[in-house]
């Protein structure tokens, strides 16, 4: 089982750097997680442009970054609740179903299928993304790690709770934000942004996702597999044969972002720091790194870079 903390991003630690860049555009390139873009949208007066690789992460960004309002009407909410009341189950009594690396109660899987049949699900891509976000929260609640699921809430109660809860993160920052999935280099070159934040994946690629991220992807694509989802050849989050290959690829990729003033690289792999520093120097940018311990065994590193 992979360690979730290795996937987490701690945006608070670089927020002081971002405070100097108000009223500007920020491009955020990430692979898996979703909390950082939301943190930026919520806390800084900037326009957020995100790019993700995973379809589930893209749905998340569509719902919460590109979209500003909670779109489900009271009629939609009543329908979703009614469905839960009809299909109510107790998690401890429900059979567990294995779905592409995650275990969920069968009652939940049936409910998910019915939700996806509702007309509201296909109304717009933002409605679909909002419902995926809602289903993800429910799925996280019912996720079975080992042994029987002893979650206390029945489906109808959990749905009632989360229908109230999920409205909270939907909010506008009074900017036109955009979300992309696998942005191409030409688009990247044409984005007029001052800040680039890159969540640098490890050179070995992501082997396995933590269950709560895996379940988000499975809800969006039943056949999801991480290696399968990445384009052929080298890409963000894929496995690189050597560190040099990785640095070369990163350098080529980032050369399309030279017009962005500040780069903030989130580096999980401490061994990569030296190579990335040299890469930035070769790209005629000065950089400095700073580190924050998260736990006794784990620390988080950032590289900040500006044109020399």
């Amino acid at each position, binding site marked *: 089982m992979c360690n979730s*903390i290795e996937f*987490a991003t701690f945006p*608070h630690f670089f927020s002081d750097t971002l405070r100097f860049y108000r009223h500007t555009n920020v491009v955020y390139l990430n692979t898996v997680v979703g909390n950082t873009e939301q943190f930026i949208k919520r806390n800084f007066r900037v326009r957020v442009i995100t790019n993700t690789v995973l379809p589930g992460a893209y749905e998340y960004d569509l719902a919460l970054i590109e979209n500003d309002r909670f779109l489900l009407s009271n009629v939609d909410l009543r329908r979703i609740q009614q469905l839960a009341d009809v299909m109510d189950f107790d998690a401890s009594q429900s059979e567990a179903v294995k779905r592409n690396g995650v275990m969920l109660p069968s009652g939940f899987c049936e409910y998910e299928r019915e939700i996806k049949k509702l007309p509201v699900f296909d109304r717009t891509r933002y409605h679909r993304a909002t419902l995926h976000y809602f289903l993800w929260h429910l799925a996280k609640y019912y996720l079975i790690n080992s042994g029987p699921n002893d979650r206390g809430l029945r489906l109808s109660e959990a749905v009632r*709770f989360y229908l109230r809860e999920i409205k909270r993160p939907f909010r506008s920052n009074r900017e036109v934000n955009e979300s992309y999935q696998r942005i191409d280099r030409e688009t990247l070159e044409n984005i007029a942004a001052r800040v680039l934040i890159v969540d640098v994946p490890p050179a070995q690629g992501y082997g396995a996702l933590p269950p*709560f991220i895996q379940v988000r992807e499975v809800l969006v694509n039943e056949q999801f597999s991480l290696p399968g989802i990445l384009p052929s050849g080298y890409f963000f989050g894929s496995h690189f044969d050597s560190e040099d290959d990785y640095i070369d690829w990163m350098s080529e990729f980032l050369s399309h972002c030279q017009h962005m003033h500040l780069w903030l690289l989130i580096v999980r792999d401490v061994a990569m720091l030296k190579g990335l520093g040299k890469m930035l120097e070769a790209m005629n940018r000065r950089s400095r790194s700073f580190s924050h311990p998260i736990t006794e065994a784990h620390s988080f590193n950032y590289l900040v870079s500006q044109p020399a």
Partner: protein
Amino acid sequence: MFNEFFSEQYGRRNPNARLFHELLEATSRVVNLVEQKDAQHSDRVALNCLRLARRVGISDQITLAQVYFAGLLHDIGEIGVPDSLLYKKGKLSEEEFQVLTTHTAVGQQIASQIPVLATAARLILWHHERWDGTGYPEGLTMDETPMLAQIVSLCDAFDNIRRGGLFSKPEDWDSELMRFAGIQFNPSLVRPLIELTEEGLADDTECSPEDEEVLNAMELQEDVIAQLREDYVSIIVNFLLALLEAKHKESALHSKRVARLCQRVGEQMKLSEQELQTLVIAGNLHDIGKVGIPNSILDKPGMLNDMEYKVIQKHPQYAATILEPLSGFSEVVAAVLHHHERWNGCGYPGGLKGDDIPLLARVLHLCDLADALTHLRSVPKHFAAEQVRYVIEDGFGSYFDPDISRFFEEDALEVEKLEDDA
């Protein structure tokens, strides 16, 4: 920075001072002053954090001590949240909620002023993260949040459930916790906490010998003590100033200016190095008692009414209460406690007169008023630096020791003004 002071007070006079315990006691008193709603909340959370961490298998004494401190200081950042918002009845608006969420980051910044509590500071930052990822500030999901922070979060929420008022029934506490397992809390922590409550340990606010052992372990840790000995006084001054800055920035800036003025006047008076450092420390900390005064009074435009004036007059005593546990700070305490005494005996809190007022308190009073006359918003009329000497000598002559006021130079105020503008 305060080497002479430290070596005199802690080296020669009190070589066996228990630095970490002093710090703990002073911190505890600050927390109790800050928490006007429920003075025991943080104490209970701290002890429950310690016990729960032990119950789930954490045995390293230093780690346990960090969890204890995170529990004790978890809400210290609330000092930066306006009282009107903290005590607001009913639902907070979106903007108000945003302001409230800053208390975790403010708390982290305050706690990180004490380097030996670096781990606790990080835990404070994450104590409102939720298991399902809808918490703040970072929105971490499940075990992305470090386990120790999950423990603080759970114990904080549990104490909030327990103090839920008349309608909070003890028989409902367990089911309330179970209801939010998997939503707000790590489900694997909830069961051990319920076991603690069943054993009655979660209600016990007295430190058991086992709990004491954890705090003693910090005192025995050589690198912790070495770190404290290296810069003990600066750590305390910076921690308390950070706290005051979060509460009332104007007072913190005023304190720093007063400390610099004190240094200049002290140098003119040819005080010894140790006295000079004591005076500078007292200058920095003379208004620290304001952490216990509501912002509505500190920020009130215009004159205070009698009731409000009585409340604000308590700040020297509050300051003394905070600093008393620090064994080497007795002279600082005397200066801070009496910095509103007047030469003619009409000051507060003791109404001391003439030479009965400690010397450093007399200097501090002079510098405090001089800076207030030129800078503070709460003073109705500001004076130019060159007018202050006239005001001190003629207007308030009877307030000050004449032997000290002759050392006062208005140039010092000019310099302060320039530094402020810069």
